Protein backbone atom coordinates (compact mmCIF):
# COMPACT_ATOMS: atom_id res chain seq x y z
CA UNK A 1 0.00 0.00 0.00
CA UNK A 2 1.42 3.42 -0.91
CA UNK A 3 0.75 6.51 1.13
CA UNK A 4 -1.66 8.77 -0.75
CA UNK A 5 -0.44 12.25 -1.57
CA UNK A 6 -1.67 14.71 1.00
CA UNK A 7 -0.42 18.14 1.88
CA UNK A 8 -1.58 18.11 5.49
CA UNK A 9 0.70 16.84 8.21
CA UNK A 10 -2.25 15.53 10.22
CA UNK A 11 -3.37 12.08 9.03
CA UNK A 12 -6.36 11.64 11.31
CA UNK A 13 -8.50 14.45 12.68
CA UNK A 14 -11.03 13.70 15.40
CA UNK A 15 -13.36 16.58 16.22
CA UNK A 16 -15.90 16.77 19.08
CA UNK A 17 -16.43 13.02 18.98
CA UNK A 18 -19.05 11.55 21.31
CA UNK A 19 -20.46 8.06 21.74
CA UNK A 20 -23.34 6.98 23.94
CA UNK A 21 -24.27 3.39 24.72
CA UNK A 22 -27.81 3.94 25.92
CA UNK A 23 -27.42 6.05 29.03
CA UNK A 24 -23.65 5.51 29.22
CA UNK A 25 -21.48 8.28 27.81
CA UNK A 26 -18.38 6.35 26.64
CA UNK A 27 -16.73 9.25 24.81
CA UNK A 28 -17.60 12.91 25.20
CA UNK A 29 -16.49 15.76 22.96
CA UNK A 30 -13.09 14.23 22.15
CA UNK A 31 -10.84 16.23 19.85
CA UNK A 32 -7.55 14.65 18.84
CA UNK A 33 -5.08 14.87 15.94
CA UNK A 34 -2.76 12.09 14.85
CA UNK A 35 0.07 13.83 12.93
CA UNK A 36 2.12 11.86 10.41
CA UNK A 37 5.20 10.19 11.85
CA UNK A 38 4.26 10.92 15.46
CA UNK A 39 3.77 8.22 18.09
CA UNK A 40 0.75 9.12 20.21
CA UNK A 41 -0.15 7.23 23.35
CA UNK A 42 -3.59 7.19 24.95
CA UNK A 43 -3.40 6.61 28.69
CA UNK A 44 -6.01 6.62 31.40
CA UNK A 45 -7.81 4.34 33.82
CA UNK A 46 -9.95 1.42 32.67
CA UNK A 47 -13.25 2.57 31.21
CA UNK A 48 -11.83 5.95 30.14
CA UNK A 49 -12.96 5.36 26.53
CA UNK A 50 -9.62 4.64 24.89
CA UNK A 51 -10.69 1.49 23.03
CA UNK A 52 -13.98 3.15 22.09
CA UNK A 53 -11.97 5.78 20.18
CA UNK A 54 -10.23 2.99 18.23
CA UNK A 55 -13.56 1.28 17.55
CA UNK A 56 -15.00 4.56 16.26
CA UNK A 57 -12.01 5.28 14.01
CA UNK A 58 -12.03 1.78 12.48
CA UNK A 59 -15.79 1.83 11.90
CA UNK A 60 -16.61 -1.02 14.28
CA UNK A 61 -19.05 1.35 15.99
CA UNK A 62 -20.61 4.58 14.75
CA UNK A 63 -20.27 7.90 16.60
CA UNK A 64 -23.25 9.57 18.25
CA UNK A 65 -21.87 12.95 17.17
CA UNK A 66 -18.65 14.55 15.98
CA UNK A 67 -16.42 13.88 12.99
CA UNK A 68 -13.42 11.74 12.03
CA UNK A 69 -11.41 12.68 8.95
CA UNK A 70 -8.64 10.63 7.35
CA UNK A 71 -6.41 12.69 5.04
CA UNK A 72 -9.22 15.22 4.83
CA UNK A 73 -11.95 12.67 3.94
CA UNK A 74 -14.75 11.78 6.37
CA UNK A 75 -14.66 8.23 7.75
CA UNK A 76 -18.08 8.14 9.39
CA UNK A 77 -20.49 5.56 8.00
CA UNK A 78 -17.77 3.67 6.13
CA UNK A 79 -17.52 -0.11 6.66
CA UNK A 80 -14.51 -1.34 8.70
CA UNK A 81 -13.03 -3.25 5.74
CA UNK A 82 -13.08 -0.12 3.57
CA UNK A 83 -11.42 1.90 6.33
CA UNK A 84 -8.75 -0.81 6.61
CA UNK A 85 -8.11 -0.57 2.88
CA UNK A 86 -7.52 3.17 3.25
CA UNK A 87 -4.43 2.35 5.31
CA UNK A 88 -5.66 2.23 8.91
CA UNK A 89 -4.98 -1.03 10.75
CA UNK A 90 -5.47 -2.03 14.35
CA UNK A 91 -4.72 -4.70 16.89
CA UNK A 92 -7.12 -5.84 19.58
CA UNK A 93 -6.66 -6.00 23.33
CA UNK A 94 -7.85 -9.63 23.20
CA UNK A 95 -5.68 -10.21 20.09
CA UNK A 96 -8.40 -11.88 17.95
CA UNK A 97 -5.88 -13.97 16.08
CA UNK A 98 -7.11 -16.38 13.44
CA UNK A 99 -6.74 -19.13 16.01
CA UNK A 100 -6.87 -22.25 13.86
CA UNK A 101 -4.73 -20.90 11.08
CA UNK A 102 -0.96 -21.14 11.05
CA UNK A 103 1.31 -18.22 11.79
CA UNK A 104 2.15 -17.88 8.09
CA UNK A 105 -1.54 -18.04 7.12
CA UNK A 106 -2.41 -15.35 9.67
CA UNK A 107 0.12 -13.06 8.03
CA UNK A 108 -0.73 -14.03 4.43
CA UNK A 109 -4.41 -13.35 5.06
CA UNK A 110 -3.90 -9.71 5.92
CA UNK A 111 -1.80 -9.20 2.78
CA UNK A 112 -4.58 -10.61 0.56
CA UNK A 113 -7.05 -7.78 0.24
CA UNK A 114 -9.27 -9.42 -2.40
CA UNK A 115 -12.46 -11.03 -1.12
CA UNK A 116 -13.04 -12.97 -4.35
CA UNK A 117 -12.42 -16.62 -5.03
CA UNK A 118 -8.81 -16.33 -5.99
CA UNK A 119 -5.89 -13.96 -5.50
CA UNK A 120 -2.49 -14.66 -6.97
CA UNK A 121 0.47 -14.78 -4.61
CA UNK A 122 3.03 -12.26 -5.80
CA UNK A 123 6.78 -12.33 -5.21
CA UNK A 124 6.38 -9.17 -3.11
CA UNK A 125 3.94 -10.95 -0.81
CA UNK A 126 6.26 -13.91 -0.36
CA UNK A 127 9.17 -11.62 0.44
CA UNK A 128 7.07 -9.56 2.85
CA UNK A 129 5.95 -12.71 4.65
CA UNK A 130 9.54 -13.86 5.12
CA UNK A 131 10.61 -10.40 6.28
CA UNK A 132 7.83 -10.12 8.84
CA UNK A 133 8.45 -13.66 10.14
CA UNK A 134 12.14 -12.84 10.47
CA UNK A 135 11.59 -9.50 12.20
CA UNK A 136 9.10 -10.85 14.72
CA UNK A 137 11.17 -13.96 15.45
CA UNK A 138 8.33 -16.23 14.36
CA UNK A 139 10.23 -17.83 11.47
CA UNK A 140 10.53 -21.19 13.25
CA UNK A 141 6.84 -21.12 14.18
CA UNK A 142 5.53 -20.40 10.71
CA UNK A 143 3.59 -23.66 10.51
CA UNK A 144 2.33 -23.60 14.11
CA UNK A 145 -1.33 -22.75 14.68
CA UNK A 146 -1.93 -19.46 16.46
CA UNK A 147 -3.82 -21.30 19.18
CA UNK A 148 -0.73 -23.37 19.96
CA UNK A 149 1.63 -20.40 20.43
CA UNK A 150 2.97 -19.15 23.76
CA UNK A 151 1.56 -15.85 25.04
CA UNK A 152 4.50 -13.69 23.92
CA UNK A 153 4.47 -15.33 20.48
CA UNK A 154 0.79 -14.52 20.12
CA UNK A 155 1.56 -10.89 20.91
CA UNK A 156 4.27 -10.88 18.23
CA UNK A 157 1.87 -12.53 15.76
CA UNK A 158 -0.64 -9.79 16.45
CA UNK A 159 2.10 -7.27 15.63
CA UNK A 160 3.22 -9.31 12.61
CA UNK A 161 -0.26 -9.04 11.08
CA UNK A 162 -0.26 -5.28 11.31
CA UNK A 163 3.32 -5.12 9.98
CA UNK A 164 2.29 -7.18 6.95
CA UNK A 165 -0.81 -5.10 6.32
CA UNK A 166 1.26 -2.26 4.82
CA UNK A 167 -0.95 0.25 6.61
CA UNK A 168 0.49 3.62 7.50
CA UNK A 169 -1.55 4.28 10.63
CA UNK A 170 -1.36 1.61 13.33
CA UNK A 171 -3.79 1.64 16.22
CA UNK A 172 -2.33 -0.67 18.87
CA UNK A 173 -4.53 -1.66 21.82
CA UNK A 174 -2.31 -2.63 24.77
CA UNK A 175 0.18 -4.32 22.45
CA UNK A 176 2.87 -5.09 25.02
CA UNK A 177 0.82 -6.02 28.07
CA UNK A 178 2.02 -9.19 29.80
CA UNK A 179 5.31 -9.46 27.93
CA UNK A 180 8.46 -10.61 29.75
CA UNK A 181 11.30 -8.02 29.86
CA UNK A 182 13.31 -9.50 26.98
CA UNK A 183 10.28 -9.79 24.68
CA UNK A 184 9.21 -6.32 25.78
CA UNK A 185 12.52 -4.79 24.68
CA UNK A 186 12.34 -6.58 21.33
CA UNK A 187 8.75 -5.40 20.90
CA UNK A 188 9.62 -1.76 21.60
CA UNK A 189 12.56 -1.88 19.19
CA UNK A 190 10.29 -3.23 16.44
CA UNK A 191 7.81 -0.41 16.97
CA UNK A 192 10.64 2.15 16.88
CA UNK A 193 11.96 0.64 13.65
CA UNK A 194 8.59 0.86 11.93
CA UNK A 195 8.01 4.39 13.22
CA UNK A 196 11.35 5.37 11.66
CA UNK A 197 10.19 3.78 8.39
CA UNK A 198 7.29 6.25 8.35
CA UNK A 199 4.45 4.44 10.11
CA UNK A 200 2.27 6.63 12.32
CA UNK A 201 1.39 4.84 15.55
CA UNK A 202 -1.27 5.41 18.18
CA UNK A 203 -1.00 3.18 21.24
CA UNK A 204 -3.30 2.45 24.15
CA UNK A 205 -1.04 1.32 26.97
CA UNK A 206 -1.05 0.91 30.73
CA UNK A 207 2.64 0.07 30.83
CA UNK A 208 4.26 3.43 31.64
CA UNK A 209 7.65 2.16 30.49
CA UNK A 210 6.41 1.89 26.90
CA UNK A 211 4.77 5.32 27.23
CA UNK A 212 8.08 6.87 28.27
CA UNK A 213 10.24 5.00 25.75
CA UNK A 214 8.06 5.44 22.69
CA UNK A 215 5.68 8.36 22.93
CA UNK A 216 6.14 11.66 21.17
CA UNK A 217 2.88 12.86 22.63
CA UNK A 218 0.52 11.50 25.29
CA UNK A 219 -3.22 12.09 25.66
CA UNK A 220 -4.72 11.41 29.07
CA UNK A 221 -8.36 10.27 29.11
CA UNK A 222 -10.77 9.88 31.98
CA UNK A 223 -14.49 9.12 31.86
CA UNK A 224 -14.65 9.77 28.12
CA UNK A 225 -12.88 13.15 28.18
CA UNK A 226 -9.35 14.09 27.16
CA UNK A 227 -8.07 15.83 30.29
CA UNK A 228 -4.60 16.69 29.09
CA UNK A 229 -2.25 16.27 26.15
CA UNK A 230 1.50 16.81 26.03
CA UNK A 231 4.85 15.09 26.29
CA UNK A 232 5.16 11.97 28.42
CA UNK A 233 7.12 14.00 30.99
CA UNK A 234 4.38 16.59 31.30
CA UNK A 235 1.59 14.06 31.60
CA UNK A 236 3.19 11.45 33.82
CA UNK A 237 4.59 14.01 36.29
CA UNK A 238 1.26 15.77 36.75
CA UNK A 239 0.15 14.84 40.30
CA UNK A 240 -3.52 15.48 39.52
CA UNK A 241 -3.48 13.02 36.58
CA UNK A 242 -1.46 10.50 38.58
CA UNK A 243 -4.10 10.61 41.30
CA UNK A 244 -6.82 9.87 38.74
CA UNK A 245 -4.77 7.11 37.10
CA UNK A 246 -3.97 5.34 40.36
CA UNK A 247 -7.47 5.85 41.74
CA UNK A 248 -6.49 8.23 44.56
CA UNK A 249 -8.69 11.14 43.60
Amino acid at each position, binding site marked *: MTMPQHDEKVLLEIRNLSKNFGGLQAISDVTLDLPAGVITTLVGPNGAGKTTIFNLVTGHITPSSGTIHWLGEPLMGIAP*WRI*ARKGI*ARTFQDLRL*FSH*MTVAENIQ*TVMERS*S*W*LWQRQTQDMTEKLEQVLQETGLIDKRNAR*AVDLAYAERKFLSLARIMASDSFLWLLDEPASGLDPRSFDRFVELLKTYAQRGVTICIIEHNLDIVIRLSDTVAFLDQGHILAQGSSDEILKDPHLAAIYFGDR
Partner: protein
Amino acid sequence: MLAYLQNIAVLFAINAILAMALNFIMGYAGIFSLAQAVFFGIGAYTAGYIALNVSDSLLVSMAAAMGISAVLSMALALPALRVRGEYFVAASLGLQMIGVTIFSEWKSVTGGLGGLVGVPPPVIFGYTLTSTSEFLVLALLILAGILVVSALLVRGSFGRSLMALRDSESAAQAYGKNVNTVKTLSVAVSAALASLGGVIYAFYMSFVNVEVFTLEMSILLMAMVIIGGTGTLLGPIVGAAIVMALPAALTYLPFIPPGELGTIQQIIYGSAMVLLMMFRPGGLVGGRSKDKTV
Protein backbone atom coordinates in the same frame (compact mmCIF):
# COMPACT_ATOMS: atom_id res chain seq x y z
CA MET B 1 -24.30 -58.66 -4.52
CA LEU B 2 -22.16 -56.49 -6.82
CA ALA B 3 -25.19 -54.44 -7.84
CA TYR B 4 -26.06 -53.95 -4.17
CA LEU B 5 -22.55 -52.71 -3.35
CA GLN B 6 -22.53 -50.46 -6.41
CA ASN B 7 -25.85 -49.00 -5.32
CA ILE B 8 -24.45 -48.31 -1.83
CA ALA B 9 -21.37 -46.75 -3.43
CA VAL B 10 -23.43 -44.39 -5.63
CA LEU B 11 -25.48 -43.27 -2.64
CA PHE B 12 -22.26 -42.87 -0.63
CA ALA B 13 -20.76 -40.65 -3.36
CA ILE B 14 -23.91 -38.50 -3.46
CA ASN B 15 -23.86 -38.08 0.31
CA ALA B 16 -20.13 -37.36 0.29
CA ILE B 17 -20.72 -34.61 -2.31
CA LEU B 18 -23.43 -33.08 -0.13
CA ALA B 19 -21.31 -33.35 3.03
CA MET B 20 -18.30 -31.78 1.29
CA ALA B 21 -20.45 -28.92 0.09
CA LEU B 22 -21.79 -28.40 3.61
CA ASN B 23 -18.29 -28.60 5.06
CA PHE B 24 -17.27 -25.74 2.79
CA ILE B 25 -19.45 -23.31 4.74
CA MET B 26 -19.63 -25.16 8.06
CA GLY B 27 -16.01 -26.17 8.49
CA TYR B 28 -14.24 -23.26 6.85
CA ALA B 29 -16.61 -20.30 7.23
CA GLY B 30 -18.27 -21.33 10.50
CA ILE B 31 -21.77 -21.10 8.96
CA PHE B 32 -23.75 -23.98 10.48
CA SER B 33 -26.60 -24.58 8.06
CA LEU B 34 -29.53 -26.91 8.64
CA ALA B 35 -30.84 -26.21 5.14
CA GLN B 36 -28.37 -28.25 3.08
CA ALA B 37 -31.06 -30.73 2.00
CA VAL B 38 -32.90 -27.86 0.31
CA PHE B 39 -30.03 -27.34 -2.15
CA PHE B 40 -29.85 -31.10 -2.67
CA GLY B 41 -33.55 -30.86 -3.53
CA ILE B 42 -33.15 -27.84 -5.81
CA GLY B 43 -30.49 -29.74 -7.76
CA ALA B 44 -32.66 -32.84 -8.03
CA TYR B 45 -35.86 -31.03 -8.99
CA THR B 46 -34.02 -28.83 -11.52
CA ALA B 47 -32.44 -31.87 -13.18
CA GLY B 48 -35.71 -33.77 -13.13
CA TYR B 49 -37.73 -30.89 -14.53
CA ILE B 50 -35.21 -30.10 -17.28
CA ALA B 51 -34.83 -33.76 -18.25
CA LEU B 52 -38.60 -34.21 -18.44
CA ASN B 53 -39.40 -30.91 -20.20
CA VAL B 54 -36.35 -29.40 -21.87
CA SER B 55 -33.31 -31.60 -22.45
CA ASP B 56 -31.85 -34.86 -21.22
CA SER B 57 -28.32 -33.48 -21.45
CA LEU B 58 -26.42 -34.05 -18.21
CA LEU B 59 -24.30 -30.94 -18.69
CA VAL B 60 -27.33 -28.72 -19.25
CA SER B 61 -28.95 -30.07 -16.08
CA MET B 62 -25.75 -29.62 -14.07
CA ALA B 63 -25.23 -26.06 -15.25
CA ALA B 64 -28.87 -25.13 -14.59
CA ALA B 65 -28.92 -26.78 -11.16
CA MET B 66 -25.70 -25.06 -10.10
CA GLY B 67 -26.86 -21.68 -11.36
CA ILE B 68 -30.32 -21.87 -9.79
CA SER B 69 -28.94 -23.14 -6.48
CA ALA B 70 -26.31 -20.42 -6.36
CA VAL B 71 -28.94 -17.74 -6.97
CA LEU B 72 -31.41 -19.20 -4.47
CA SER B 73 -28.63 -19.55 -1.90
CA MET B 74 -28.96 -15.81 -1.39
CA ALA B 75 -31.95 -16.69 0.78
CA LEU B 76 -29.46 -18.45 3.05
CA ALA B 77 -26.74 -15.82 2.66
CA LEU B 78 -29.01 -13.02 3.80
CA PRO B 79 -29.42 -14.24 7.40
CA ALA B 80 -25.78 -15.37 7.42
CA LEU B 81 -24.73 -11.76 6.87
CA ARG B 82 -26.61 -10.63 9.95
CA VAL B 83 -26.40 -13.43 12.50
CA ARG B 84 -23.94 -16.11 13.58
CA GLY B 85 -23.88 -19.31 15.61
CA GLU B 86 -27.11 -20.62 17.07
CA TYR B 87 -29.09 -17.70 15.63
CA PHE B 88 -28.10 -18.67 12.12
CA VAL B 89 -28.90 -22.35 12.82
CA ALA B 90 -32.43 -21.27 13.76
CA ALA B 91 -32.71 -19.13 10.61
CA SER B 92 -31.50 -22.01 8.40
CA LEU B 93 -34.03 -24.31 10.07
CA GLY B 94 -36.74 -21.90 8.93
CA LEU B 95 -35.39 -21.99 5.38
CA GLN B 96 -35.36 -25.79 5.46
CA MET B 97 -39.04 -25.78 6.43
CA ILE B 98 -39.90 -23.27 3.69
CA GLY B 99 -37.98 -25.36 1.14
CA VAL B 100 -39.80 -28.58 1.99
CA THR B 101 -43.15 -26.78 1.85
CA ILE B 102 -42.39 -25.39 -1.60
CA PHE B 103 -41.17 -28.81 -2.83
CA SER B 104 -44.39 -30.44 -1.71
CA GLU B 105 -46.81 -27.70 -2.75
CA TRP B 106 -45.46 -26.29 -6.06
CA LYS B 107 -47.12 -29.06 -8.00
CA SER B 108 -46.58 -27.65 -11.52
CA VAL B 109 -42.80 -27.83 -11.12
CA THR B 110 -42.07 -30.39 -8.40
CA GLY B 111 -45.02 -32.68 -8.89
CA GLY B 112 -46.11 -32.06 -5.30
CA LEU B 113 -46.11 -34.99 -2.89
CA GLY B 114 -46.13 -37.40 -5.82
CA GLY B 115 -42.84 -35.97 -7.08
CA LEU B 116 -41.33 -36.17 -10.56
CA VAL B 117 -41.64 -39.65 -11.99
CA GLY B 118 -39.85 -41.20 -14.95
CA VAL B 119 -36.83 -38.91 -15.20
CA PRO B 120 -35.08 -40.11 -18.38
CA PRO B 121 -31.45 -41.29 -18.25
CA PRO B 122 -28.95 -38.48 -18.83
CA VAL B 123 -26.96 -38.08 -22.00
CA ILE B 124 -23.39 -36.84 -22.04
CA PHE B 125 -21.49 -36.31 -25.30
CA GLY B 126 -24.07 -38.48 -27.06
CA TYR B 127 -23.68 -41.37 -24.59
CA THR B 128 -26.64 -42.39 -22.44
CA LEU B 129 -25.90 -43.42 -18.83
CA THR B 130 -28.12 -46.26 -17.73
CA SER B 131 -26.30 -48.84 -15.59
CA THR B 132 -25.43 -48.52 -11.91
CA SER B 133 -21.73 -48.87 -12.69
CA GLU B 134 -21.91 -45.92 -15.12
CA PHE B 135 -23.61 -43.81 -12.48
CA LEU B 136 -20.97 -44.88 -9.99
CA VAL B 137 -18.21 -43.65 -12.30
CA LEU B 138 -20.09 -40.37 -12.84
CA ALA B 139 -20.67 -39.85 -9.11
CA LEU B 140 -17.04 -40.63 -8.24
CA LEU B 141 -15.76 -38.31 -10.98
CA ILE B 142 -17.94 -35.45 -9.69
CA LEU B 143 -16.86 -36.22 -6.12
CA ALA B 144 -13.20 -36.11 -7.19
CA GLY B 145 -13.83 -32.86 -9.07
CA ILE B 146 -15.43 -31.28 -6.01
CA LEU B 147 -12.53 -32.49 -3.87
CA VAL B 148 -10.06 -30.78 -6.22
CA VAL B 149 -12.11 -27.56 -6.41
CA SER B 150 -12.51 -27.50 -2.62
CA ALA B 151 -8.79 -28.12 -2.09
CA LEU B 152 -7.86 -25.30 -4.47
CA LEU B 153 -10.31 -22.90 -2.87
CA VAL B 154 -9.60 -23.63 0.80
CA ARG B 155 -5.83 -23.71 0.36
CA GLY B 156 -5.83 -20.42 -1.52
CA SER B 157 -6.64 -16.86 -0.56
CA PHE B 158 -10.40 -17.51 -0.45
CA GLY B 159 -9.99 -20.37 2.02
CA ARG B 160 -7.87 -18.16 4.24
CA SER B 161 -10.55 -15.46 4.08
CA LEU B 162 -13.20 -18.00 5.08
CA MET B 163 -11.15 -19.26 8.01
CA ALA B 164 -10.31 -15.73 9.10
CA LEU B 165 -14.03 -14.96 9.22
CA ARG B 166 -14.71 -18.13 11.15
CA ASP B 167 -12.01 -17.38 13.73
CA SER B 168 -12.62 -13.65 14.16
CA GLU B 169 -15.01 -11.72 11.96
CA SER B 170 -14.11 -8.36 13.50
CA ALA B 171 -10.37 -8.93 13.01
CA ALA B 172 -10.97 -10.04 9.40
CA GLN B 173 -12.89 -6.82 8.77
CA ALA B 174 -10.18 -4.78 10.46
CA TYR B 175 -7.70 -6.19 7.94
CA GLY B 176 -9.78 -5.34 4.89
CA LYS B 177 -11.90 -8.45 4.36
CA ASN B 178 -15.30 -7.69 2.85
CA VAL B 179 -17.24 -10.05 5.07
CA ASN B 180 -20.47 -9.79 3.08
CA THR B 181 -18.81 -10.75 -0.20
CA VAL B 182 -16.88 -13.64 1.32
CA LYS B 183 -19.94 -15.08 3.08
CA THR B 184 -22.20 -14.66 0.05
CA LEU B 185 -19.68 -16.33 -2.25
CA SER B 186 -19.08 -19.21 0.15
CA VAL B 187 -22.80 -19.93 0.50
CA ALA B 188 -23.26 -19.74 -3.29
CA VAL B 189 -20.35 -22.13 -3.93
CA SER B 190 -21.63 -24.55 -1.29
CA ALA B 191 -25.18 -24.51 -2.72
CA ALA B 192 -23.93 -24.99 -6.28
CA LEU B 193 -21.78 -27.97 -5.27
CA ALA B 194 -24.63 -29.52 -3.26
CA SER B 195 -26.95 -29.24 -6.25
CA LEU B 196 -24.66 -31.61 -8.18
CA GLY B 197 -25.51 -34.31 -5.65
CA GLY B 198 -29.15 -33.65 -6.43
CA VAL B 199 -28.58 -33.93 -10.18
CA ILE B 200 -26.93 -37.35 -9.87
CA TYR B 201 -29.65 -38.49 -7.46
CA ALA B 202 -32.49 -37.45 -9.78
CA PHE B 203 -31.01 -39.24 -12.79
CA TYR B 204 -29.90 -42.29 -10.82
CA MET B 205 -33.25 -42.86 -9.11
CA SER B 206 -35.23 -41.54 -12.16
CA PHE B 207 -37.59 -40.25 -9.52
CA VAL B 208 -37.59 -37.16 -7.29
CA ASN B 209 -39.66 -36.97 -4.14
CA VAL B 210 -39.75 -34.49 -1.27
CA GLU B 211 -39.21 -37.17 1.39
CA VAL B 212 -35.46 -37.20 0.72
CA PHE B 213 -34.97 -33.46 1.21
CA THR B 214 -36.29 -33.10 4.73
CA LEU B 215 -34.70 -31.80 7.92
CA GLU B 216 -33.63 -35.34 8.77
CA MET B 217 -31.37 -35.34 5.70
CA SER B 218 -29.87 -31.97 6.66
CA ILE B 219 -29.12 -33.28 10.16
CA LEU B 220 -27.64 -36.48 8.76
CA LEU B 221 -25.34 -34.45 6.50
CA MET B 222 -24.26 -32.32 9.44
CA ALA B 223 -23.53 -35.52 11.35
CA MET B 224 -21.38 -36.79 8.46
CA VAL B 225 -19.31 -33.60 8.54
CA ILE B 226 -18.91 -33.66 12.32
CA ILE B 227 -18.07 -37.38 12.47
CA GLY B 228 -15.49 -37.05 9.69
CA GLY B 229 -14.01 -33.77 10.88
CA THR B 230 -15.21 -30.23 10.21
CA GLY B 231 -12.79 -28.03 8.32
CA THR B 232 -10.88 -30.98 6.82
CA LEU B 233 -10.90 -31.96 3.17
CA LEU B 234 -11.33 -35.70 3.63
CA GLY B 235 -13.44 -35.59 6.79
CA PRO B 236 -16.84 -35.34 5.06
CA ILE B 237 -15.97 -38.28 2.78
CA VAL B 238 -14.97 -40.41 5.79
CA GLY B 239 -18.08 -39.27 7.65
CA ALA B 240 -20.34 -40.13 4.71
CA ALA B 241 -18.70 -43.53 4.35
CA ILE B 242 -19.29 -44.36 8.01
CA VAL B 243 -22.86 -43.13 8.11
CA MET B 244 -23.65 -44.99 4.87
CA ALA B 245 -21.76 -48.15 5.76
CA LEU B 246 -23.19 -48.55 9.22
CA PRO B 247 -26.74 -49.55 8.21
CA ALA B 248 -25.37 -51.84 5.52
CA ALA B 249 -22.93 -53.47 7.96
CA LEU B 250 -25.61 -53.93 10.59
CA THR B 251 -27.78 -55.92 8.23
CA TYR B 252 -25.04 -58.57 8.16
CA LEU B 253 -25.00 -59.03 11.94
CA PRO B 254 -27.00 -62.24 12.45
CA PHE B 255 -27.72 -61.67 16.14
CA ILE B 256 -29.78 -58.53 15.48
CA PRO B 257 -33.41 -59.44 14.81
CA PRO B 258 -34.53 -57.78 11.53
CA GLY B 259 -37.48 -56.20 13.30
CA GLU B 260 -35.18 -54.38 15.72
CA LEU B 261 -32.64 -53.25 13.14
CA GLY B 262 -33.90 -49.65 12.85
CA THR B 263 -33.98 -49.13 16.61
CA ILE B 264 -30.50 -50.56 17.13
CA GLN B 265 -29.16 -48.43 14.27
CA GLN B 266 -30.46 -45.31 15.98
CA ILE B 267 -28.88 -46.32 19.30
CA ILE B 268 -25.53 -47.04 17.63
CA TYR B 269 -25.63 -43.74 15.71
CA GLY B 270 -26.43 -41.84 18.87
CA SER B 271 -23.78 -43.60 20.96
CA ALA B 272 -21.14 -43.12 18.27
CA MET B 273 -21.84 -39.37 18.13
CA VAL B 274 -21.66 -39.01 21.91
CA LEU B 275 -18.42 -41.00 22.19
CA LEU B 276 -16.84 -39.22 19.25
CA MET B 277 -17.59 -35.77 20.60
CA MET B 278 -16.24 -36.83 24.01
CA PHE B 279 -12.98 -38.36 22.82
CA ARG B 280 -12.37 -36.82 19.41
CA PRO B 281 -14.20 -33.51 19.15
CA GLY B 282 -12.35 -32.61 15.96
CA GLY B 283 -13.82 -35.66 14.17
CA LEU B 284 -12.07 -38.75 12.81
CA VAL B 285 -9.88 -36.83 10.35
CA GLY B 286 -9.63 -33.71 12.52
CA GLY B 287 -7.52 -33.36 15.63
CA ARG B 288 -8.05 -34.72 19.13
CA SER B 289 -7.79 -31.33 20.77
CA LYS B 290 -10.77 -29.28 21.77
CA ASP B 291 -11.09 -26.02 19.86
CA LYS B 292 -10.00 -22.85 21.56
CA THR B 293 -9.87 -19.26 20.48
CA VAL B 294 -7.12 -16.73 21.11
